[in-house]
């Protein structure tokens, strides 16, 4: 299976995603240059973390207009899997692939820390190797990760089982302290209506080795592999 990892000029987690796919998952990965109109036959597109075009205006606001994003949008519309991590989540929202927006963190500070998320729906393309209610340890590193959408949209996301990850405590409780950025309803990750686009603020690609503190992210990649390769 082939993963295409988009490289915007300010992407800085493209390298990490590349290594997670090739070294940990053992699958093929290619970098997709933002100025190109070519997905190089990738089965799965990864929108990695970073600062796409500097993000001085608003995270992801310019990236959606880049040549490669036109192809990514077409790929998503035809049901192709897209994994948006951190800045990739922001870009997916800006590009209309996912509802809502990511705002500045509640305390207006960048936050970098390992934290816990609960798997809310293990029936998706991205989570089928997890179990419902399982708690994962994943790092976050973002300044604009506060998920926002109007209440009716949030209700719909919840009703349709599209909220995939939530910030929780070690005992699985939702508390204000466990929510690092003030996201609505403690949302850490959501999928699109068709379930083929995942946006999440935590970094699964940084949780692929016990040496670095967690390998809870590996099964997210394995989930995609299981579904797409099947």
């Amino acid at each position, binding site marked *: 299976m082939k993963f295409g990892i988009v490289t915007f000029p300010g992407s800085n987690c493209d390298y990490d995603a590349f290594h997670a796919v090739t070294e940990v998952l053992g699958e093929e990965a290619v970098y997709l240059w933002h100025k190109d109109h070519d997905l190089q036959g990738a089965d799965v597109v990864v929108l990695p973390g*970073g*600062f796409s075009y500097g993000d001085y205006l608003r995270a992801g606001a310019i990236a959606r207009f880049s040549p490669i994003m036109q192809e990514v949008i077409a790929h998503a519309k035809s049901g192709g899997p897209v994994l948006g991590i951190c800045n990739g989540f922001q870009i997916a929202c800006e590009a209309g692939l996912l509802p809502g927006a990511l705002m500045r963190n509640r305390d207006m500070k960048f936050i970098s820390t390992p934290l816990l998320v609960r798997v809310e729906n293990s029936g998706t393309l991205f989570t089928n190797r997890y179990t419902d209610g399982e708690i994962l340890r994943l790092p976050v590193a973002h300044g604009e990760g506060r998920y926002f959408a109007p209440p009716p949209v949030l209700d719909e996301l919840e009703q349709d089982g599209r909220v995939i990850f939530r910030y929780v405590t070690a005992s699985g409780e939702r508390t204000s302290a466990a929510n690092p950025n003030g996201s609505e309803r403690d949302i850490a990750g959501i999928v699109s209506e068709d379930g083929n686009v995942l946006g999440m603020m935590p970094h699964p690609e940084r949780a692929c080795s016990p040496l670095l503190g967690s390998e809870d992210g590996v099964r997210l990649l394995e989930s995609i592999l299981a579904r797409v390769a099947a």
Partner: protein
Amino acid sequence: MAQVAARPGDPVITPALIAEHGINDTEYTRLVAMLGRTPTFTELGIVSALWSEHCSYKHSRPLLRTLPTKASWVLQGPGENAGVISIGDGLAVAFKIESHNHPSAVEPYQGAATGVGGILRDVFTMGARPIAMLNSLRFGSLDSARVRYLFAGVVKGIGDYGNCVGIPTVAGEIAFDPAYEGNPLVNAMCVGLLHEEDLIRAKAEGVGNPIIAVGARTGRDGIHGASFASEDLSAASDAKRPRIQVGDPFTEKLLLEVSLELIKSGHIVAIQDMGAAGLTSSSAEMAERGDVGVTIDAAKVPTREAGMSPYEILLSESQERMLVVALKGHEQDVVDILTRWDLSAAVIGEVIAEPVYRVTENGAVVAEFPGSRLVTECPSYSPKAREAPAIAMLRGKDPLSIAERAEESDPVWTLEQMLSSPTIASKAWAHRQYDSTVRTSTVIGPGEGDAAVIRVRGTRKALALKTDCNGRYVYLDPRMGGRIAVAEAARNVACTGARPMAITNCLNFGNPTRPEVFYQLKEAVAGMGEACRALETPVTSGNVSLYNESPSGAVYPTPVIGMVGLIEDIDHVTRSVFSNDGDAILLLGDTLAELGGSEYLSRIHGTVLGAPPQCDPARERRLIDSLLDAIKAGYVASAHDCSDGGLAVCIAESCIGNSDELYGASIDLTALGDLPARALLYSESQARILISTTAPDAVAAAAKSAGVPCRRIGTVKRATKVIEFKLRSRQFSAPLARLAAAYHDAIPNIMARTPEHAATDLQSAGAA
């Protein structure tokens, strides 16, 4: 030599103008002799920048020459953009530390951010990909609103810049002391990884080769930044805010990728950051290293606004610019690479055979210096050195003559006070604002161990990185303080399982023309040299920041050491917190009554006096060798350097350092002799390391044969919620919850006192 004429509209050279450029009479005479005529305004500007302390090291060069710089693993010593050492397997590490103190004192956010940007460029212009950032920060007391504003701004500036470029900020240290009130220290260190064959030096070569300006356009910001960094801070410093540059980390990220691509491409022969003194220093230094002439046409430099004079163009410190010497005929290849990254390039000059440094403007020569004398003939001073009698007197005082405070009758109170001292307390408030896990190689991140550990992909190896310096020690006894700075950094990297390899240093001192300051500089450098020789950690690069004085006086002399250590096998990585119930707790090294300059005196008694702890570099070497042997043998579960705050703080940190998992312990110090309790608990004797192990007898036997004192002082007890201390004079039990709250909540609680908007108000009011 070409005819050099005064440029129409330029000011006339007067004694006042010369003085304003920080050039003294002797230096001016030297300049006129070199030129054989009166300098032009442009030439005066060039010389004022290149002969500033910041660029010329005129007060420190003779001292720096005494430091050891060589070892078989050193590929590049001082004099380049960064030092480089080999780590085997064809891989090398480039690293350097640099100060951005004065800009950060005036504009903390941009000052710190551009400090990070500058040091990143120094590393990637060696052909290395930056893999880690460290910061050594000093501030006044957090009780001051102004200091909280500076602290918050600096941390945010460091974070925003490094986070955007995508380089993990992984370690460093932060200390607070009123001595840094008016003049904080902001030192940034960058570490990069490269293949040995990609190493490139900033040396202009090849007559006819074009000189190309790359990256951001040149604006009027930062003009005379290097000179600003070479004078004392004063009430007028705020008016010099325009001398502070503004950072653009996105452009930096582009420059990083472009520079590495250019170096790999083979189209260029040299590349250098336009850092302090901008185009002037980068071009003059590259010419000097290559022993060639250069000519630069200022009119060809892309500028942000029309009408900039050669003077302004040459001295601008606009950020995110590089100077490249390309191979003749490969100009288009260079432009193609830049275009791919949406960066611009302009040919602005060339390497010439004639031994001159020449600047033209549309064909007219506006500045010309013979040969490389501009760099090589800058003045050098060895001023008088004399210890201040007041400091000698302070050193002579006996800390134990100070009566205990009434509260100290409760030993838990004292320990809580120590752990909540901002210098000791957890710095997670700052670390959480730094992306420390990007690049997925951070094994030990900030605050998680005695040093950061970064794995080296494709190998079993890892690097251990740390900065250190206790300015109080250097203040009280610069020779000893200089030794300790090196020794402590070495112990810290060794505690993670690394062999200390080499250092970079950042010498933050006051005004060197004052004999008592020059004495500190001289003695501290001598002490550093002694420790570096004993530990075989040569100095491969460095930076000198003098004139760190404000109206309230000089900062503590603070020669910060940035240490790189090598872990041969990732299995040897060792953490500083206890991790196994029942492990024996051992203390390597002797504890003496050494409370001079201690955190205990400062925190509990509000005073800095006495002789600092003694440091014997040979003993430090034996300790480190012995520790590394024990780690390699697999005996060591945790290792923690025992320094600031002494033994009690060290033990507590190993118990509560990981807030997710607290460990209790029972400690028996009766075997350590009959020192007064406070000396036993808080003395900062050097050459000590606290370890936990399942094999205490094996460790003790090995230590004994190596001549390292080793005593069992306790046992890790997971289930107990306390640390039990047994001394000859008293016994007490400290609840972990109280200690953890003191340690982890101290800085967040203090910082909650100043909301961000209040800090901004302070900034706009320019309050001091």
